[in-house]
């Protein structure tokens, strides 16, 4: 008699506990993935900062040889400033694309100054910049991969239910605009 009452109750309790545990697991999984995005973002940030640090030096060196290319140099500085102020991923990505673009112009300009091209300091910075550009590309790839798996998780069942309850928002990708910007800047000496 007692068993007839207890068994269904125990079964129900067990089912509830299982559902709760599964819920905790899914929730923790999503939070872990979100934290991984922060980590991936910091990888991009490190590389972007390295580039920010390098640009003033580069501009100074170019100035020494090609002072009247003011417009190009200012554009590079402006893009750098924009990048440093950027608050969102979207803005950062935009500024980063701009920097890549303006640097490309700068290198095209540098082509016309043989003395500049012969400057060892300049050559070294160019090499370093190339390394940073390709590292940015790699970091972006890792970041976007991480965002992709997070976004997929919170947009598919059962993650989407949790996303609704706990306000998990889809993250932005670090995008590049022009297709030709997909590779690192090619520099010819």
């Amino acid at each position, binding site marked *: 008699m007692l068993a007839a009452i207890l068994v269904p109750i125990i079964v129900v309790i067990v089912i509830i506990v299982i559902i709760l545990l599964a819920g905790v697991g899914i929730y923790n999984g999503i939070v872990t993935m979100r934290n991984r995005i922060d980590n991936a973002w910091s990888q991009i940030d490190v590389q972007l900062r390295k580039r920010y640090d390098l640009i003033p030096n580069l501009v100074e060196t170019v100035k020494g040889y090609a002072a009247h290319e003011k417009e190009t140099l200012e554009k590079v500085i402006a893009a750098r400033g924009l990048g440093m102020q950027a608050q969102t991923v979207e803005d950062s990505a935009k500024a980063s694309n701009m920097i890549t673009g303006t640097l490309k112009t700068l290198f095209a300009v540098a082509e016309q100054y043989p003395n500049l091209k012969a400057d060892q300091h300049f050559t070294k910075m160019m090499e370093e910049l190339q390394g940073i550009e390709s590292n940015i590309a790699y970091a972006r790839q*890792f970041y976007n991969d991480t965002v992709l798996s997070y976004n997929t998780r919170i947009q598919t069942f059962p993650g989407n239910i949790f996303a609704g309850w706990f306000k998990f928002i889809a993250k932005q990708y670090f995008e590049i605009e022009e297709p030709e910007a997909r590779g690192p800047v090619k520099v010819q000496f």
Partner: protein
Amino acid sequence: MYKRIASNRRRTTFIIILFVMFIAALGFAIGYYIDYRYGVSQEYSILLMVFALIIAIIASFGSYFYSDKIVLGLTGAAPLSREENPRVYYMAEGLSIAAGIPMPKVFVIEEQGMNAFATGRNPGNAVVVLTRGIINNLDDEELKGVIAHELSHIKNYDILLGTIIVILVGMVTIISNIMFRSFIFGGRGRSSSSNKNAGGGIFSLVFMILGLVLIALSPLIAMYIRFAVSRQREYLADSNGALITRYPAGLANALKKISMYSEVRTANNATEHIFIASPFGKNTKVAFSGLFNSHPPIEERIKRLQEMSLGIGVKSEAEIALEAQKNNEIKQEEIS
């Protein structure tokens, strides 16, 4: 991915426990024999077992923390600095960013055979080892493929299991060798000197039996390695590596070149399984090599990668042969 990390940790724990038990049993057996032979109390068996147990536990801890250094020493690898080879250094740096792991150290083995492996206990303490031959003979995309393959071994803790197996199997092999030799030389010495000390004969007989048991076990242990470091693992590292570079053809072309000359002279039975391709090359002289290959057939790996690449960037056999020839010519010029 995360399931594989857990599985690798579990297997590592399992194999260490197996090793500790094995050594303890060995200590007990020897102690038991001494008790029996010399009629002492039963204390020696327990004493030796405890002694063996302590040694085995110390060895296990030691191999957890130092196995990577031992493996590097065994294969004669030396660190590669950024100044010495910026090409390889920056490649490793960029690819580890893409893989989302800290940058591993890069070591080089001064050998012309083309091969590579990774070792360490976790991504924070990992080393990628390349031979001089692989650095010199592969182009950028191919070398990136190889490094990415090793990085994915690091990322999912294949390196922990692989490296610990090297040390533990190495130790079992050494012990079985000592026992076997002590029987052969011990036996010979006694027979030539005198027959008065006939008891020594029995002693060496037991050693022989133990040694034989160990030797008989070695292939089984080796087989376990082959299963633990299963073929599936190499396929997975191939595809994960291709995911990092986004260029499966790079690794496919690399494997084609590697398969022509992958011999590493400092490699041995204990370290074989950690290499990207068998360090014994194709003409392996190890018994049962066909049955117990630690690596899946390289042709099959190339085929899978080529399918992944949809044919983009895949080099034909003729192109590979031509490049190999060019590299040889450059080498000849450098020598002359």
